[in-house]
C-alpha cells in the first residue's frame, strides 16, 4: 500500500485522547492497532485500563483450550505493558483458578493498581494471594468466586471506595473488619453469603447492596447511606433465629440512615424488619426517602403491614412506592382485622408527594384492598396507581376491580391502571 496524500489524521493527537479512544475499543482491537503504523506500534502499551473478557480469544467448544489461550493472552499483554495499570478486569466464566492469576495480581500490585475485578467461572474458587492486600492504592475491588483470607497484619485498604464480593468465602468477622477498616468505603455489595450476621460500620457508606442468607443486619454506623437494597433469603436456621431474636430489627437496620433516598427490599426483608419489638412512636423520619420498593410483603401478616405503614408514614417526601405481595404465604391464621383500615382514615396522614404507586402480585386479600384504599384516599397528588394481580388468582380479579372502583380518590388526576395478563 502506498502512502496517502492526506496527512495523518489521528496519530498526533495527545496521548490522553488516544488512550480515551483505545479504552473504548475491545482490548484485542486496541492491541491490533499496533500494526497500523510505526507511531501506533506501542501506543496501546501504556493504556492504564485493561479489560478482558472471552472476546479476546477465539472461542471453541474446548473450555480448557479457551482458558489456556486466555491466560496466555492476558499474561502476554501484561508482559508487554509499560507503565502503571489502574484498572484490571477479567470478566468471563471461562476463567478458572490457576497460578497465572496469582502472578497477575503480583504484577498489578507493583503497578499501582486501583481497580481490580475478577470474575471466575464455575469451579474451584480462587484463593486470593497475599499480595492483593498490599495494593495500597486500591479504590475498587470486585471478586466473584474467590476466597479471602487476609493476614492478621492487614489494616484495610485505605483508599477503597467500592467493594463488591459475590460468592466469596470469607469469615464473618473478617468481612466486618475489612468493611470497617476501609474508611473511604462508599459502595458495598455483598451477595450470596451464607448465614451472615453483619454489622456494618462505614461512616462514608452511600450505597449498600445485600443479597443472601443474612441472619442479622445491623447498620451500626452508616449515617450517609443514600441507597439501600436488601434481598434476604431464608433457611430454617435463619427462621429459627428470627423467632428467637428479641432485638428490634427495624431500628437496627433502618435506625441510623437519615439520608436515605432509596430503599429496596426483597423476599424476606419486610418480614425481617417486622421481627422484634414494636418500634412504637419512634422519632424516625426519612426526609429524603423518595422511592420505596418492598417485594414479597405478606399482607396476611399484621406485623409486616405495620412495618410497611410505618415506613411510608415516616417518609413525608415519598414519591414512588412499589409493593409486591407474597403469593406463597400460608393461609392466615387470624381473622383479618377489618376495622383496621377504617381506623386509619385519610385524616391521619397525607402523602403529599406520592405520585406513583405500583402494586404487583396482588391476591385480593382483605388487607391488600384496605391498603390500596388507604393509599388512594391519602394521596392528593397521585398520578398513577398500577395494579397487577397475581397470576394465580384469575377468578378474583373481577372482585378486585369491583372493590377498587368504589374507593375514594384524593387525587383527581389519579389514573388507575389494572394490568391483567
Amino acid at each position, binding site marked *: *500500500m502506498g*502512502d*496517502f496524500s*492526506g*496527512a*495523518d*489524521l*489521528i*496519530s498526533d*493527537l*495527545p496521548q*490522553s*485522547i488516544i488512550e*480515551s*479512544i*483505545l479504552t*473504548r*475499543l*475491545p482490548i484485542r*482491537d486496541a*492491541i*491490533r*492497532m*499496533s*500494526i*497500523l*503504523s*510505526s*507511531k*501506533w*506500534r*506501542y501506543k*496501546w502499551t501504556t493504556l492504564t485500563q485493561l479489560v478482558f473478557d472471552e472476546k479476546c480469544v477465539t472461542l471453541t467448544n474446548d473450555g480448557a483450550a479457551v482458558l489456556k489461550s486466555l491466560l496466555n493472552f492476558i499474561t*502476554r499483554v501484561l508482559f*508487554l505493558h509499560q507503565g502503571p495499570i489502574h484498572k484490571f478486569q477479567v470478566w468471563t466464566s471461562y476463567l478458572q483458578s490457576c497460578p497465572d492469576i496469582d502472578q497477575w495480581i503480583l504484577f498489578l500490585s507493583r503497578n499501582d493498581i486501583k481497580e481490580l475485578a475478577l470474575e471466575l467461572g464455575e469451579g474451584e474458587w480462587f484463593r486470593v494471594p497475599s499480595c492483593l492486600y498490599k495494593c495500597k492504592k486500591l479504590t475498587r475491588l470486585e471478586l466473584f468466586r474467590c476466597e479471602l483470607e487476609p493476614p492478621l497484619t492487614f489494616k484495610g485498604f485505605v483508599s477503597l471506595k467500592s467493594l463488591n464480593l459475590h460468592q466469596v468465602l470469607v469469615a464473618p468477622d473478617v468481612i466486618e473488619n475489612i468493611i470497617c477498616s476501609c474508611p473511604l468505603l462508599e459502595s458495598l455489595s455483598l451477595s450470596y453469603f451464607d448465614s451472615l450476621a453483619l454489622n456494618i460500620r462505614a461512616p462514608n457508606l452511600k450505597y449498600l447492596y445485600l443479597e443472601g442468607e443474612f441472619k442479622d443486619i445491623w447498620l451500626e454506623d452508616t449515617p450517609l447511606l443514600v441507597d439501600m437494597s436488601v434481598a434476604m433469603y431464608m433457611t430454617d436456621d435463619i427462621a429459627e433465629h428470627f423467632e428467637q431474636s428479641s432485638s428490634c430489627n427495624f431500628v437496627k437496620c433502618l435506625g441510623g440512615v437519615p439520608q436515605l433516598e432509596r430503599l429496596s427490599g426483597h423476599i424476606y426483608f419486610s418480614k425481617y424488619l417486622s421481627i422484634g419489638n414494636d418500634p412504637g412512636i419512634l422519632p424516625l423520619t426519612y426526609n429524603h426517602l423518595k422511592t420505596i420498593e418492598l417485594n414479597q410483603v405478606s399482607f396476611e401478616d399484621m406485623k409486616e403491614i405495620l412495618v410497611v405503614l410505618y415506613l411510608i408514614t415516616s417518609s413525608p417526601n415519598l414519591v414512588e412506592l412499589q409493593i409486591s405481595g407474597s403469593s406463597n404465604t400460608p393461609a392466615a391464621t387470624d381473622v383479618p382485622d377489618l376495622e383496621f383500615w377504617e381506623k386509619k382514615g385519610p385524616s391521619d396522614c397525607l402523602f403529599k408527594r406520592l405520585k406513583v404507586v405500583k402494586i404487583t402480585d396482588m391476591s385480593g386479600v382483605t388487607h391488600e384492598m384496605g391498603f390500596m384504599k388507604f393509599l388512594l384516599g391519602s394521596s392528593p397528588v397521585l398520578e398513577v396507581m398500577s395494579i397487577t394481580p397475581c397470576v394465580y388468582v384469575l377468578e378474583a380479579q373481577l372482585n378486585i376491580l369491583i372493590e377498587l372502583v368504589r374507593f375514594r380518590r384524593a387525587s383527581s388526576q389519579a389514573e388507575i391502571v389494572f394490568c391483567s395478563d
Partner: protein
Amino acid sequence: MHCHCQMSEGAMAVVKPEMKSYIWLQTVDGSIQQVEEEVAMFCPMICREILQTGMGSSKNYAISLPQRVNPAILGLILDYCRFHQTPGRSIKERKTFDEKFIRMDTKRLCELTSAADGLQLKPLVDLTSRALARIIEGKTPEEIRETFHLPDDLTEEEKLEPLRNITDDPRIRLLNRLYARKRKELKERQKLKNVEVEEERVDERSVDDLLSFINGGDGDSKGTRTKNKKKHRRRKEQNKDSSSNNSNWNHNKEFDPLPLAGQNGDLNDIFVGSPSRNPKSQDSTAANFSSKIEFVDGDIDDDLDPAMKEELDREVEDFARRLNSDWPERMQEILSLGQERRPVPISMNDNGSASRYTSLGQR
C-alpha cells in the same frame, strides 16, 4: 452591537432591554469573533482565561485560542456549547443532539477531538472519542489506515512482534539461511563428485528445504533443515523461488520487484536500510550485520568437513561485509560479479546448475 431591543422610545420605560455580554475569541489564523458569554464560558479553558486574566471583554483583548482550534471547528464547538449550556434540556434531548452532532467525516471528527481537548471540553472529548472508537472497531488494518491516512511503515516483522513476541535474533536467522544455502551448494557439488546412495537422501533434503521455504509463508516452520527448530514467520510478500520439481508453490505471495533470492530471500534482508524503501523488507537490524556473529545452531555443520567449513566461513564474512556497505554499490557489485562468485542467491535446478533469477513472477 447585538441588541435585542428594537422598540420605540415610548416603550423603553416599560420593557427592560436584554443586553447580552459577549466574549471575544481569536483563532490561530488571526480572525476574531464574538460569542455569547454563557456559551463561551461552557469551555473550561475559556472560562479560566476570563477569570484569571480578564481577557476577552473586547476586540483588542480577544482570548487567543489554541492552535488546534480553527474557525470552522470553533463554530462547531460553539454550536455544541450553545445547545448544552441551555438549562432544562432532558437527557434524551441531549443524547439525540449528540448523536446527530458527531455525524461528520472522519477528518473533521479528528480535528474536532483535538480542538475540544485544547479547550478542555471533556464531554465533547468523550463524545468524539467514542465516535472514533466506533469508527475503528471492526475494521481491518487496511481499512483503518485508509480512514485515517496512516502510513504503512512497519516492516512485516514489526507487525508481528506485538502479538507474537518473536525472540529470534534476526542476524542469527540470516546466518542460518546463509549456511543453509551454502550447505546445499556444497552438497550439490559433492553429489556430482561421488555418486552414492547418500545422494538420494541429499536430494530429498533439498526438496524438503525448498518446500519448507515455500511453505514458510503459511506461518509454518521456516527451518530449512529438519534439525533447525527455530520458527520463523515469513509473510506473503516474500518472493519464493522454486525449481520445477516443486509443486507446492503458493501463489498468494506478491513478488518483490528487485531481483531476488532463491531459497532464502536473503536479499530482502539486505534491502533494509536502503533509502528506496522496500515495504516488504525484513527487520532493520539485519542491516547491522557484523562479521563477528555468534552462531547458535551448531548442528548445522554436522555434515561438513573442515575444508568446507572454512570456505563457508569465508563466504559468510564476505557476505557480512557486503551487508554493511551501501546498498546501491552492493547491488552493482553483485550484478557485476555474475558467475565468478556466487554470492547472489540463485535458484537451484534439478541438475544442480545454477541460473540467476532475473525475471519476476516466474516459476
